[in-house]
Protein backbone atom coordinates (compact mmCIF):
# COMPACT_ATOMS: atom_id res chain seq x y z
CA UNK A 1 0.00 0.00 0.00
CA UNK A 2 1.43 3.36 -0.89
CA UNK A 3 -0.25 6.39 0.52
CA UNK A 4 1.43 9.76 0.80
CA UNK A 5 2.83 10.33 4.26
CA UNK A 6 4.37 13.48 5.66
CA UNK A 7 7.68 14.70 4.32
CA UNK A 8 10.26 15.81 6.87
CA UNK A 9 8.36 18.52 8.71
CA UNK A 10 9.68 21.98 9.42
CA UNK A 11 10.78 22.42 12.99
CA UNK A 12 7.84 22.69 15.39
CA UNK A 13 7.99 26.03 17.10
CA UNK A 14 5.71 27.46 19.73
CA UNK A 15 4.47 31.02 19.71
CA UNK A 16 5.21 32.02 23.29
CA UNK A 17 3.56 35.36 24.01
CA UNK A 18 3.86 37.33 27.24
CA UNK A 19 0.64 39.04 28.28
CA UNK A 20 0.00 41.75 30.89
CA UNK A 21 -2.28 40.46 33.69
CA UNK A 22 -4.85 43.16 32.90
CA UNK A 23 -4.99 42.08 29.26
CA UNK A 24 -5.20 38.33 30.07
CA UNK A 25 -8.88 37.76 29.33
CA UNK A 26 -8.74 39.84 26.17
CA UNK A 27 -5.69 37.93 24.91
CA UNK A 28 -7.30 34.53 25.57
CA UNK A 29 -10.62 35.65 24.06
CA UNK A 30 -8.93 36.80 20.87
CA UNK A 31 -7.23 33.40 20.48
CA UNK A 32 -10.56 31.60 20.89
CA UNK A 33 -12.24 33.97 18.43
CA UNK A 34 -9.41 33.27 16.00
CA UNK A 35 -10.36 29.57 16.00
CA UNK A 36 -7.73 28.45 18.51
CA UNK A 37 -8.85 25.73 20.90
CA UNK A 38 -7.95 25.85 24.60
CA UNK A 39 -5.89 22.74 25.33
CA UNK A 40 -4.39 23.25 28.78
CA UNK A 41 -3.00 25.67 31.31
CA UNK A 42 -0.38 25.46 34.02
CA UNK A 43 1.24 27.51 36.74
CA UNK A 44 4.99 27.64 37.32
CA UNK A 45 7.52 29.28 39.58
CA UNK A 46 7.33 30.22 43.22
CA UNK A 47 6.03 33.15 45.23
CA UNK A 48 6.59 36.51 43.44
CA UNK A 49 7.98 34.76 40.34
CA UNK A 50 4.86 32.70 39.67
CA UNK A 51 3.62 32.56 36.08
CA UNK A 52 0.38 31.32 34.57
CA UNK A 53 0.39 29.89 31.05
CA UNK A 54 -2.55 28.93 28.84
CA UNK A 55 -2.10 26.74 25.76
CA UNK A 56 -4.13 26.96 22.57
CA UNK A 57 -4.03 24.76 19.47
CA UNK A 58 -5.13 25.16 15.88
CA UNK A 59 -4.18 22.58 13.29
CA UNK A 60 -0.64 21.53 14.09
CA UNK A 61 0.20 24.90 15.65
CA UNK A 62 0.39 25.81 19.31
CA UNK A 63 0.36 29.11 21.17
CA UNK A 64 1.43 29.62 24.79
CA UNK A 65 0.15 32.78 26.47
CA UNK A 66 1.93 33.56 29.72
CA UNK A 67 1.12 36.17 32.31
CA UNK A 68 2.78 37.22 35.51
CA UNK A 69 1.01 35.68 38.52
CA UNK A 70 3.36 36.92 41.24
CA UNK A 71 0.48 38.86 42.76
CA UNK A 72 -1.29 35.51 43.17
CA UNK A 73 -4.35 36.75 41.33
CA UNK A 74 -5.27 36.30 37.65
CA UNK A 75 -8.57 36.94 35.88
CA UNK A 76 -10.39 33.68 35.18
CA UNK A 77 -11.10 32.39 31.67
CA UNK A 78 -13.61 29.65 32.60
CA UNK A 79 -16.45 31.64 31.06
CA UNK A 80 -14.47 31.88 27.79
CA UNK A 81 -13.16 28.30 27.91
CA UNK A 82 -15.11 26.09 30.34
CA UNK A 83 -12.50 23.39 29.70
CA UNK A 84 -10.09 25.48 31.81
CA UNK A 85 -12.06 24.82 34.99
CA UNK A 86 -9.95 21.95 36.32
CA UNK A 87 -6.71 23.65 35.28
CA UNK A 88 -7.56 26.75 37.31
CA UNK A 89 -8.67 24.71 40.32
CA UNK A 90 -5.46 22.69 40.17
CA UNK A 91 -3.30 25.84 39.98
CA UNK A 92 -5.13 27.22 43.00
CA UNK A 93 -4.44 24.08 45.03
CA UNK A 94 -0.82 23.54 44.00
CA UNK A 95 0.45 27.08 43.36
CA UNK A 96 -1.89 29.20 45.45
CA UNK A 97 -3.18 31.21 42.50
CA UNK A 98 -6.57 32.89 42.74
CA UNK A 99 -8.76 33.31 39.69
CA UNK A 100 -10.92 36.43 39.85
CA UNK A 101 -14.40 35.57 38.69
CA UNK A 102 -14.07 31.79 39.16
CA UNK A 103 -16.57 31.46 41.98
CA UNK A 104 -16.61 29.26 43.92
CA UNK A 105 -13.08 28.02 43.24
CA UNK A 106 -13.55 24.51 44.67
CA UNK A 107 -10.54 22.45 45.74
CA UNK A 108 -9.57 19.73 43.27
CA UNK A 109 -6.14 18.28 44.05
CA UNK A 110 -6.20 19.36 47.70
CA UNK A 111 -8.57 17.11 49.64
CA UNK A 112 -10.58 19.44 51.83
CA UNK A 113 -12.26 17.62 54.71
CA UNK A 114 -15.60 19.49 54.55
CA UNK A 115 -17.75 17.91 51.86
CA UNK A 116 -19.58 21.17 51.21
CA UNK A 117 -16.35 22.89 50.17
CA UNK A 118 -15.72 20.65 47.16
CA UNK A 119 -19.21 19.58 46.07
CA UNK A 120 -21.87 21.44 44.17
CA UNK A 121 -24.80 22.12 46.53
CA UNK A 122 -27.79 20.01 45.53
CA UNK A 123 -30.97 20.23 47.58
CA UNK A 124 -34.68 19.59 47.48
CA UNK A 125 -37.11 16.99 48.67
CA UNK A 126 -35.81 13.44 48.62
CA UNK A 127 -32.26 14.30 47.52
CA UNK A 128 -29.42 12.54 49.25
CA UNK A 129 -25.76 11.75 48.65
CA UNK A 130 -24.05 8.46 47.88
CA UNK A 131 -20.30 8.33 48.50
CA UNK A 132 -18.31 5.76 46.51
CA UNK A 133 -14.59 5.13 46.80
CA UNK A 134 -11.68 5.78 46.84
CA UNK A 135 -11.54 1.95 47.00
CA UNK A 136 -13.91 0.24 44.57
CA UNK A 137 -15.35 -3.26 44.38
CA UNK A 138 -13.29 -4.52 41.43
CA UNK A 139 -9.71 -4.11 40.30
CA UNK A 140 -10.15 -0.40 39.67
CA UNK A 141 -7.95 2.60 40.30
CA UNK A 142 -8.58 4.72 43.35
CA UNK A 143 -10.89 7.71 43.16
CA UNK A 144 -13.95 9.02 44.96
CA UNK A 145 -17.35 9.89 43.51
CA UNK A 146 -19.97 11.86 45.38
CA UNK A 147 -23.37 11.25 43.79
CA UNK A 148 -26.30 13.52 44.50
CA UNK A 149 -29.37 11.40 43.82
CA UNK A 150 -33.13 11.18 44.07
CA UNK A 151 -34.07 7.55 44.39
CA UNK A 152 -31.87 5.86 41.80
CA UNK A 153 -31.58 8.92 39.56
CA UNK A 154 -28.29 10.82 39.58
CA UNK A 155 -28.80 14.59 39.65
CA UNK A 156 -25.13 15.45 39.78
CA UNK A 157 -21.77 13.83 40.50
CA UNK A 158 -18.66 15.42 41.94
CA UNK A 159 -15.62 13.31 41.11
CA UNK A 160 -12.83 13.68 43.64
CA UNK A 161 -9.67 12.29 42.11
CA UNK A 162 -5.98 12.89 42.87
CA UNK A 163 -5.81 10.13 45.48
CA UNK A 164 -2.94 8.89 43.33
CA UNK A 165 -1.20 12.26 43.08
CA UNK A 166 2.51 11.46 43.25
CA UNK A 167 3.87 14.91 42.43
CA UNK A 168 5.53 13.59 39.27
CA UNK A 169 5.79 17.03 37.66
CA UNK A 170 7.58 18.49 40.68
CA UNK A 171 9.82 15.42 40.95
CA UNK A 172 10.95 15.90 37.35
CA UNK A 173 12.10 19.47 37.94
CA UNK A 174 15.85 19.89 37.88
CA UNK A 175 16.52 16.63 36.00
CA UNK A 176 18.32 16.65 32.67
CA UNK A 177 15.76 16.43 29.85
CA UNK A 178 16.43 12.75 28.90
CA UNK A 179 16.54 11.65 32.56
CA UNK A 180 13.11 13.12 33.35
CA UNK A 181 11.30 11.04 30.73
CA UNK A 182 10.28 8.25 33.15
CA UNK A 183 8.33 10.78 35.24
CA UNK A 184 6.14 11.60 32.26
CA UNK A 185 5.95 7.98 31.12
CA UNK A 186 4.99 6.48 34.48
CA UNK A 187 2.22 9.01 34.97
CA UNK A 188 0.26 6.14 33.49
CA UNK A 189 1.10 2.57 32.51
CA UNK A 190 -1.67 2.29 29.92
CA UNK A 191 -0.72 5.57 28.19
CA UNK A 192 3.03 5.23 28.76
CA UNK A 193 3.97 5.56 25.08
CA UNK A 194 1.75 8.58 24.50
CA UNK A 195 3.07 10.35 27.57
CA UNK A 196 6.68 9.53 26.71
CA UNK A 197 6.34 10.58 23.07
CA UNK A 198 4.59 13.80 24.10
CA UNK A 199 7.40 14.52 26.55
CA UNK A 200 10.17 13.61 24.07
CA UNK A 201 8.65 15.75 21.33
CA UNK A 202 8.20 18.71 23.67
CA UNK A 203 11.85 18.44 24.73
CA UNK A 204 13.00 18.14 21.13
CA UNK A 205 10.95 21.22 20.26
CA UNK A 206 12.68 23.15 23.03
CA UNK A 207 16.11 21.79 22.08
CA UNK A 208 15.69 22.71 18.41
CA UNK A 209 15.62 19.13 17.10
CA UNK A 210 13.41 17.54 14.43
CA UNK A 211 12.57 13.86 14.07
CA UNK A 212 13.76 12.19 10.84
CA UNK A 213 11.52 9.72 8.98
CA UNK A 214 12.81 6.64 10.81
CA UNK A 215 12.14 8.18 14.23
CA UNK A 216 8.64 9.28 13.24
CA UNK A 217 7.90 5.75 12.02
CA UNK A 218 9.25 4.09 15.18
CA UNK A 219 7.16 6.30 17.45
CA UNK A 220 4.03 5.84 15.38
CA UNK A 221 4.39 2.05 15.55
CA UNK A 222 4.59 2.27 19.34
CA UNK A 223 1.64 4.66 19.61
CA UNK A 224 -0.55 2.39 17.48
CA UNK A 225 0.51 -0.73 19.41
CA UNK A 226 -0.53 1.12 22.56
CA UNK A 227 -3.85 2.15 21.03
CA UNK A 228 -4.43 -1.44 19.91
CA UNK A 229 -4.16 -3.12 23.30
CA UNK A 230 -6.03 -0.27 24.99
CA UNK A 231 -8.96 -0.33 22.57
CA UNK A 232 -9.19 -4.13 22.96
CA UNK A 233 -9.10 -3.65 26.73
CA UNK A 234 -11.73 -0.92 26.66
CA UNK A 235 -14.14 -3.02 24.59
CA UNK A 236 -13.63 -5.87 27.07
CA UNK A 237 -14.33 -3.44 29.92
CA UNK A 238 -17.67 -2.31 28.48
CA UNK A 239 -18.67 -5.98 28.03
CA UNK A 240 -17.79 -6.52 31.70
CA UNK A 241 -19.82 -3.41 32.55
CA UNK A 242 -22.98 -4.92 31.09
CA UNK A 243 -22.24 -8.40 32.47
CA UNK A 244 -21.53 -9.96 29.06
CA UNK A 245 -18.83 -12.43 30.05
CA UNK A 246 -18.17 -14.02 26.62
CA UNK A 247 -17.43 -10.60 25.10
CA UNK A 248 -15.32 -9.57 28.07
CA UNK A 249 -13.26 -12.76 27.97
CA UNK A 250 -12.88 -12.75 24.17
CA UNK A 251 -11.50 -9.23 24.16
CA UNK A 252 -9.39 -9.85 27.27
CA UNK A 253 -7.80 -12.75 25.36
CA UNK A 254 -7.23 -10.55 22.31
CA UNK A 255 -5.67 -7.86 24.49
CA UNK A 256 -3.34 -10.45 26.00
CA UNK A 257 -2.21 -11.44 22.51
CA UNK A 258 -1.56 -7.76 21.66
CA UNK A 259 0.50 -7.32 24.84
CA UNK A 260 2.55 -10.43 24.12
CA UNK A 261 3.27 -8.95 20.72
CA UNK A 262 4.38 -5.73 22.46
CA UNK A 263 6.84 -7.76 24.54
CA UNK A 264 8.14 -9.48 21.41
CA UNK A 265 8.65 -6.25 19.47
CA UNK A 266 9.80 -3.86 22.18
CA UNK A 267 10.74 -6.06 25.12
CA UNK A 268 7.91 -4.88 27.38
CA UNK A 269 4.20 -5.68 27.60
CA UNK A 270 3.39 -1.97 28.11
CA UNK A 271 6.20 -0.77 25.85
CA UNK A 272 8.04 0.90 28.76
CA UNK A 273 11.50 2.11 27.83
CA UNK A 274 10.82 2.14 24.09
CA UNK A 275 10.77 5.94 23.76
CA UNK A 276 13.72 8.25 24.39
CA UNK A 277 14.44 11.95 24.01
CA UNK A 278 16.21 12.72 20.74
CA UNK A 279 16.41 9.13 19.59
CA UNK A 280 14.49 5.94 19.05
CA UNK A 281 14.42 3.28 21.74
CA UNK A 282 13.55 0.39 19.42
CA UNK A 283 14.66 -1.29 16.23
CA UNK A 284 12.70 -4.06 14.51
CA UNK A 285 14.46 -6.12 11.84
CA UNK A 286 12.68 -7.02 8.61
CA UNK A 287 11.97 -10.66 9.53
CA UNK A 288 10.55 -9.76 12.95
CA UNK A 289 8.47 -7.00 11.41
CA UNK A 290 7.07 -9.44 8.88
CA UNK A 291 6.21 -11.98 11.60
CA UNK A 292 4.49 -9.23 13.57
CA UNK A 293 2.47 -8.26 10.49
CA UNK A 294 1.26 -11.84 10.22
CA UNK A 295 0.31 -11.96 13.89
CA UNK A 296 -1.49 -8.62 13.60
CA UNK A 297 -3.43 -9.74 10.54
CA UNK A 298 -4.66 -12.78 12.46
CA UNK A 299 -5.45 -10.66 15.51
CA UNK A 300 -7.37 -8.22 13.31
CA UNK A 301 -9.49 -10.98 11.83
CA UNK A 302 -10.26 -12.47 15.24
CA UNK A 303 -11.11 -9.03 16.64
CA UNK A 304 -13.48 -8.32 13.74
CA UNK A 305 -15.17 -11.70 14.25
CA UNK A 306 -15.55 -11.14 17.99
CA UNK A 307 -16.85 -7.62 17.43
CA UNK A 308 -19.59 -8.83 15.08
CA UNK A 309 -20.87 -11.06 17.89
CA UNK A 310 -21.15 -8.07 20.22
CA UNK A 311 -22.63 -5.79 17.59
CA UNK A 312 -25.39 -8.32 16.88
CA UNK A 313 -26.09 -9.30 20.46
CA UNK A 314 -29.44 -7.66 21.07
CA UNK A 315 -29.26 -7.92 24.87
CA UNK A 316 -25.86 -6.20 24.99
CA UNK A 317 -26.97 -3.43 22.67
CA UNK A 318 -30.16 -2.89 24.66
CA UNK A 319 -28.05 -2.08 27.73
CA UNK A 320 -25.95 0.56 25.98
CA UNK A 321 -28.26 2.79 23.98
CA UNK A 322 -28.95 6.20 25.51
CA UNK A 323 -26.78 5.54 28.58
CA UNK A 324 -24.40 8.33 29.57
CA UNK A 325 -25.23 10.51 26.57
CA UNK A 326 -22.98 13.51 25.98
CA UNK A 327 -24.23 16.22 23.64
CA UNK A 328 -21.99 17.46 20.87
CA UNK A 329 -22.01 21.10 21.99
CA UNK A 330 -21.42 20.10 25.62
CA UNK A 331 -18.52 17.89 24.58
CA UNK A 332 -16.91 20.74 22.65
CA UNK A 333 -17.48 23.24 25.44
CA UNK A 334 -16.13 20.94 28.16
CA UNK A 335 -13.07 20.16 26.05
CA UNK A 336 -13.76 16.45 25.54
CA UNK A 337 -11.20 14.67 23.34
CA UNK A 338 -10.49 11.28 21.82
CA UNK A 339 -13.02 8.52 21.12
CA UNK A 340 -15.43 10.11 23.61
CA UNK A 341 -15.49 13.35 21.60
CA UNK A 342 -15.55 11.59 18.23
CA UNK A 343 -18.50 9.49 19.39
CA UNK A 344 -20.40 12.80 19.74
CA UNK A 345 -19.55 13.76 16.18
CA UNK A 346 -16.63 16.09 16.91
CA UNK A 347 -13.89 15.67 14.28
CA UNK A 348 -11.06 15.82 16.77
CA UNK A 349 -8.12 13.46 16.25
CA UNK A 350 -4.68 14.85 16.95
CA UNK A 351 -3.17 12.17 14.72
CA UNK A 352 -4.29 14.28 11.74
CA UNK A 353 -2.26 17.20 13.12
CA UNK A 354 0.98 15.47 14.14
CA UNK A 355 3.80 16.50 11.81
CA UNK A 356 6.30 14.93 14.21
CA UNK A 357 4.78 11.48 13.57
CA UNK A 358 4.10 9.28 10.58
CA UNK A 359 0.40 9.89 9.93
CA UNK A 360 0.64 12.83 7.51
CA UNK A 361 -2.06 14.04 5.16
CA UNK A 362 -2.99 10.47 4.24
CA UNK A 363 -4.35 9.74 7.71
CA UNK A 364 -8.10 9.22 7.58
CA UNK A 365 -9.71 8.80 11.00
CA UNK A 366 -12.56 6.32 11.26
CA UNK A 367 -15.99 7.85 10.79
CA UNK A 368 -18.23 7.48 13.86
CA UNK A 369 -20.81 4.79 13.02
CA UNK A 370 -23.59 6.71 14.81
CA UNK A 371 -22.42 9.81 16.70
CA UNK A 372 -25.07 9.79 19.42
CA UNK A 373 -22.56 10.41 22.20
CA UNK A 374 -23.83 7.58 24.42
CA UNK A 375 -22.13 4.45 25.77
CA UNK A 376 -23.06 2.53 22.62
CA UNK A 377 -21.49 5.20 20.42
CA UNK A 378 -18.27 5.24 22.44
CA UNK A 379 -18.00 1.46 22.20
CA UNK A 380 -18.72 1.50 18.45
CA UNK A 381 -16.21 4.30 17.95
CA UNK A 382 -13.42 2.19 19.44
CA UNK A 383 -14.42 -0.82 17.38
CA UNK A 384 -14.44 1.34 14.25
CA UNK A 385 -10.97 2.68 15.06
CA UNK A 386 -9.41 -0.76 15.40
CA UNK A 387 -9.22 -1.45 11.62
CA UNK A 388 -7.50 1.93 11.11
CA UNK A 389 -4.87 0.96 13.68
CA UNK A 390 -4.38 -2.49 12.12
CA UNK A 391 -4.00 -0.85 8.70
CA UNK A 392 -1.45 1.68 9.96
CA UNK A 393 0.59 -1.03 11.68
CA UNK A 394 0.50 -3.20 8.57
CA UNK A 395 1.79 -0.31 6.50
CA UNK A 396 4.48 0.68 9.02
CA UNK A 397 5.79 -2.85 9.58
CA UNK A 398 6.15 -3.50 5.84
CA UNK A 399 9.58 -1.95 6.32
CA UNK A 400 12.03 -2.62 9.15
CA UNK A 401 12.01 -0.08 11.99
CA UNK A 402 15.50 1.35 12.21
CA UNK A 403 17.39 3.15 14.93
CA UNK A 404 17.19 6.91 14.52
CA UNK A 405 18.44 10.13 16.05
CA UNK A 406 16.75 13.55 15.97
CA UNK A 407 18.62 16.16 13.96
CA UNK A 408 19.44 19.74 15.02
CA UNK A 409 17.37 22.26 13.08
CA UNK A 410 17.65 25.54 14.92
CA UNK A 411 18.41 27.32 18.17
CA UNK A 412 16.99 26.21 21.51
CA UNK A 413 13.64 27.56 22.71
CA UNK A 414 12.72 28.10 26.36
CA UNK A 415 9.48 26.14 25.92
CA UNK A 416 8.37 23.11 23.93
CA UNK A 417 4.78 21.97 23.49
CA UNK A 418 3.64 18.71 22.01
CA UNK A 419 0.22 17.17 21.42
CA UNK A 420 -0.18 13.43 20.92
CA UNK A 421 -3.36 11.37 20.51
CA UNK A 422 -3.55 8.75 23.27
CA UNK A 423 -6.12 5.93 23.26
CA UNK A 424 -8.25 8.30 25.37
CA UNK A 425 -7.67 11.51 23.46
CA UNK A 426 -5.29 14.38 23.03
CA UNK A 427 -2.45 14.53 25.54
CA UNK A 428 -0.63 17.85 25.79
CA UNK A 429 2.85 18.13 27.20
CA UNK A 430 4.61 21.42 27.92
CA UNK A 431 8.27 21.43 28.89
CA UNK A 432 10.35 24.44 29.92
CA UNK A 433 14.09 23.81 29.79
CA UNK A 434 16.89 25.89 31.28
CA UNK A 435 20.40 24.81 30.32
CA UNK A 436 19.13 21.39 29.24
CA UNK A 437 17.42 20.72 32.59
CA UNK A 438 13.69 20.65 33.23
CA UNK A 439 12.41 23.82 34.86
CA UNK A 440 8.75 22.87 34.48
CA UNK A 441 6.99 19.81 33.09
CA UNK A 442 3.25 19.80 32.62
CA UNK A 443 1.28 16.87 31.32
CA UNK A 444 -2.41 17.27 30.50
CA UNK A 445 -3.59 13.86 29.37
CA UNK A 446 -6.64 12.83 27.40
CA UNK A 447 -8.08 11.43 30.62
CA UNK A 448 -7.66 14.76 32.44
CA UNK A 449 -9.44 16.54 29.59
CA UNK A 450 -12.33 14.06 29.62
CA UNK A 451 -13.13 13.69 33.33
CA UNK A 452 -15.39 16.80 33.47
CA UNK A 453 -17.24 15.53 30.37
CA UNK A 454 -17.73 12.14 32.04
CA UNK A 455 -19.20 13.79 35.12
CA UNK A 456 -21.51 15.86 32.90
CA UNK A 457 -22.66 12.79 30.92
CA UNK A 458 -23.51 11.00 34.18
CA UNK A 459 -26.20 13.48 35.30
CA UNK A 460 -29.72 12.19 34.68
CA UNK A 461 -28.69 8.54 34.55
CA UNK A 462 -29.39 5.74 37.00
CA UNK A 463 -26.88 5.14 39.76
CA UNK A 464 -26.36 1.46 38.80
CA UNK A 465 -25.41 2.60 35.29
CA UNK A 466 -22.45 4.67 36.52
CA UNK A 467 -19.92 1.81 36.31
CA UNK A 468 -20.97 1.27 32.71
CA UNK A 469 -20.74 4.99 31.89
CA UNK A 470 -17.33 5.10 33.57
CA UNK A 471 -16.14 2.10 31.56
CA UNK A 472 -17.49 3.51 28.30
CA UNK A 473 -15.10 6.46 28.76
CA UNK A 474 -12.46 4.19 30.38
CA UNK A 475 -10.36 7.12 31.62
CA UNK A 476 -7.19 6.64 33.62
CA UNK A 477 -7.04 7.98 37.14
CA UNK A 478 -3.24 7.77 37.25
CA UNK A 479 -3.00 9.91 34.10
CA UNK A 480 -5.11 12.64 35.65
CA UNK A 481 -3.61 12.47 39.14
CA UNK A 482 0.09 12.38 38.12
Amino acid sequence: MSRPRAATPPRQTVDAIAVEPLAWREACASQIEGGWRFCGAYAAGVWKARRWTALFARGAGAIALTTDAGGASVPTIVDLAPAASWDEREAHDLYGLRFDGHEPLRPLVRHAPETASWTVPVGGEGTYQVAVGPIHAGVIESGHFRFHVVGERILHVDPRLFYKHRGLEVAAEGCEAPAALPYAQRACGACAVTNAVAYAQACEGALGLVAPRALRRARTVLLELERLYNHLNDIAAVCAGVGFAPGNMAFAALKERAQRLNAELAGHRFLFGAVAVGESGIAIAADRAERARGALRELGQDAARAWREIAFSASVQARLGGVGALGREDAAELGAVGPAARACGLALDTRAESPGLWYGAAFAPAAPPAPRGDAAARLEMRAAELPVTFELLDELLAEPIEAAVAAPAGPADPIGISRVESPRGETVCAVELVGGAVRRLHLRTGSYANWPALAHATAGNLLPDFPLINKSFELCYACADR
Partner: protein
Amino acid sequence: MFVLLRHLQRVRRQAALSRHSGSRSLAIRHVDAGSCNACEHELTATAAPQYDLQRFGLDIVASPRHADVLLVTGPVTRRMEAALLRAYEAMPEPRRVAALGNCALGCGVLADAGELAAPLHEMLPVDIRIPGCPPSPQEIAEAILAAVDAP
Protein backbone atom coordinates in the same frame (compact mmCIF):
# COMPACT_ATOMS: atom_id res chain seq x y z
CA MET B 1 -22.30 -15.76 21.18
CA PHE B 2 -21.40 -19.24 19.91
CA VAL B 3 -18.55 -17.82 17.87
CA LEU B 4 -17.20 -16.14 21.02
CA LEU B 5 -17.50 -19.29 23.08
CA ARG B 6 -15.76 -21.34 20.41
CA HIS B 7 -13.04 -18.72 20.27
CA LEU B 8 -12.58 -18.95 24.04
CA GLN B 9 -12.42 -22.72 23.88
CA ARG B 10 -9.65 -22.46 21.32
CA VAL B 11 -7.73 -19.96 23.46
CA ARG B 12 -7.97 -22.25 26.46
CA ARG B 13 -6.78 -25.24 24.45
CA GLN B 14 -3.80 -23.24 23.16
CA ALA B 15 -2.94 -22.07 26.66
CA ALA B 16 -2.89 -25.74 27.74
CA LEU B 17 -4.35 -24.97 31.13
CA SER B 18 -4.73 -27.80 33.56
CA ARG B 19 -8.33 -28.43 34.50
CA HIS B 20 -7.79 -29.56 38.05
CA SER B 21 -5.80 -27.69 40.57
CA GLY B 22 -6.36 -29.36 43.89
CA SER B 23 -8.66 -27.92 46.48
CA ARG B 24 -7.83 -24.49 47.81
CA SER B 25 -9.40 -21.09 48.00
CA LEU B 26 -8.15 -17.60 48.60
CA ALA B 27 -10.10 -14.34 48.62
CA ILE B 28 -8.07 -11.33 47.50
CA ARG B 29 -8.93 -7.67 48.02
CA HIS B 30 -7.01 -5.26 45.80
CA VAL B 31 -6.20 -1.71 46.90
CA ASP B 32 -4.57 0.76 44.52
CA ALA B 33 -2.40 2.99 46.70
CA GLY B 34 -1.12 5.21 43.89
CA SER B 35 0.02 2.92 41.08
CA CYS B 36 0.48 3.91 37.43
CA ASN B 37 -2.33 1.50 36.46
CA ALA B 38 -0.02 -1.04 34.83
CA CYS B 39 -0.21 -3.40 37.84
CA GLU B 40 -4.02 -3.16 37.71
CA HIS B 41 -3.98 -4.12 34.03
CA GLU B 42 -1.82 -7.16 34.75
CA LEU B 43 -3.86 -8.18 37.78
CA THR B 44 -7.01 -8.00 35.66
CA ALA B 45 -5.25 -10.05 32.99
CA THR B 46 -4.82 -12.96 35.43
CA ALA B 47 -8.56 -13.54 34.91
CA ALA B 48 -8.13 -13.62 31.10
CA PRO B 49 -8.67 -17.02 29.41
CA GLN B 50 -4.91 -17.52 28.96
CA TYR B 51 -4.39 -17.62 32.75
CA ASP B 52 -7.79 -18.07 34.39
CA LEU B 53 -6.63 -17.74 37.97
CA GLN B 54 -10.11 -18.59 39.26
CA ARG B 55 -9.56 -22.23 38.40
CA PHE B 56 -7.13 -22.36 41.35
CA GLY B 57 -9.77 -21.05 43.71
CA LEU B 58 -8.31 -17.57 43.71
CA ASP B 59 -10.86 -14.78 43.61
CA ILE B 60 -10.80 -11.01 43.71
CA VAL B 61 -13.55 -10.10 46.16
CA ALA B 62 -15.53 -6.88 46.43
CA SER B 63 -14.94 -6.12 50.10
CA PRO B 64 -12.02 -6.36 52.51
CA ARG B 65 -14.56 -7.97 54.89
CA HIS B 66 -14.51 -11.04 52.61
CA ALA B 67 -10.78 -11.13 52.02
CA ASP B 68 -7.85 -13.26 53.18
CA VAL B 69 -5.23 -11.21 51.34
CA LEU B 70 -4.84 -7.46 50.91
CA LEU B 71 -3.09 -6.99 47.57
CA VAL B 72 -1.56 -3.52 47.39
CA THR B 73 -0.25 -1.71 44.30
CA GLY B 74 1.51 1.66 44.18
CA PRO B 75 3.94 3.48 46.49
CA VAL B 76 1.22 4.56 49.04
CA THR B 77 0.40 8.20 48.46
CA ARG B 78 -0.47 10.52 51.32
CA ARG B 79 -4.06 10.65 50.15
CA MET B 80 -4.45 6.84 50.04
CA GLU B 81 -2.86 6.06 53.39
CA ALA B 82 -6.03 6.32 55.50
CA ALA B 83 -8.18 4.31 53.08
CA LEU B 84 -5.52 1.59 52.85
CA LEU B 85 -5.25 1.22 56.62
CA ARG B 86 -9.03 1.15 57.00
CA ALA B 87 -9.28 -1.62 54.41
CA TYR B 88 -6.69 -3.62 56.37
CA GLU B 89 -8.48 -3.05 59.66
CA ALA B 90 -11.74 -4.22 58.09
CA MET B 91 -10.25 -7.63 57.23
CA PRO B 92 -10.89 -10.64 59.45
CA GLU B 93 -7.94 -12.60 60.90
CA PRO B 94 -5.98 -14.47 59.69
CA ARG B 95 -5.01 -11.97 57.03
CA ARG B 96 -2.03 -11.49 54.78
CA VAL B 97 -0.63 -8.50 52.89
CA ALA B 98 0.79 -8.80 49.39
CA ALA B 99 2.86 -6.09 47.71
CA LEU B 100 2.26 -6.16 43.97
CA GLY B 101 4.90 -4.44 41.85
CA ASN B 102 8.09 -2.53 42.55
CA CYS B 103 6.33 0.63 43.76
CA ALA B 104 4.50 -1.25 46.51
CA LEU B 105 7.83 -2.86 47.41
CA GLY B 106 9.37 0.61 47.68
CA CYS B 107 11.84 0.01 44.83
CA GLY B 108 12.64 2.61 42.20
CA VAL B 109 9.61 4.72 43.05
CA LEU B 110 9.15 7.80 40.87
CA ALA B 111 7.47 10.51 42.92
CA ASP B 112 7.91 13.68 44.92
CA ALA B 113 8.76 12.36 48.39
CA GLY B 114 6.43 14.92 49.97
CA GLU B 115 3.42 13.29 48.32
CA LEU B 116 4.11 9.82 49.72
CA ALA B 117 3.26 8.29 53.06
CA ALA B 118 5.61 5.70 54.56
CA PRO B 119 6.52 2.68 52.39
CA LEU B 120 4.01 -0.17 52.63
CA HIS B 121 6.33 -2.47 54.61
CA GLU B 122 6.70 0.16 57.33
CA MET B 123 2.94 0.46 57.58
CA LEU B 124 1.75 -3.14 57.34
CA PRO B 125 3.40 -6.57 57.65
CA VAL B 126 4.10 -7.59 54.04
CA ASP B 127 3.97 -11.38 53.62
CA ILE B 128 3.96 -11.80 49.86
CA ARG B 129 6.32 -9.90 47.58
CA ILE B 130 5.69 -9.77 43.84
CA PRO B 131 8.43 -7.71 42.14
CA GLY B 132 8.25 -6.34 38.61
CA CYS B 133 7.36 -3.18 36.77
CA PRO B 134 4.77 -4.43 36.36
CA PRO B 135 4.99 -8.16 37.16
CA SER B 136 3.43 -10.21 34.34
CA PRO B 137 0.14 -12.08 34.93
CA GLN B 138 2.20 -15.29 34.97
CA GLU B 139 4.47 -13.93 37.72
CA ILE B 140 1.49 -12.68 39.74
CA ALA B 141 -0.22 -16.07 39.48
CA GLU B 142 2.92 -17.99 40.44
CA ALA B 143 3.73 -15.76 43.42
CA ILE B 144 0.23 -15.97 44.87
CA LEU B 145 -0.02 -19.72 44.33
CA ALA B 146 3.39 -20.26 45.93
CA ALA B 147 2.22 -18.30 48.98
CA VAL B 148 -0.99 -20.32 49.24
CA ASP B 149 0.84 -23.62 48.90
CA ALA B 150 3.65 -22.73 51.33
CA PRO B 151 3.52 -24.98 54.39
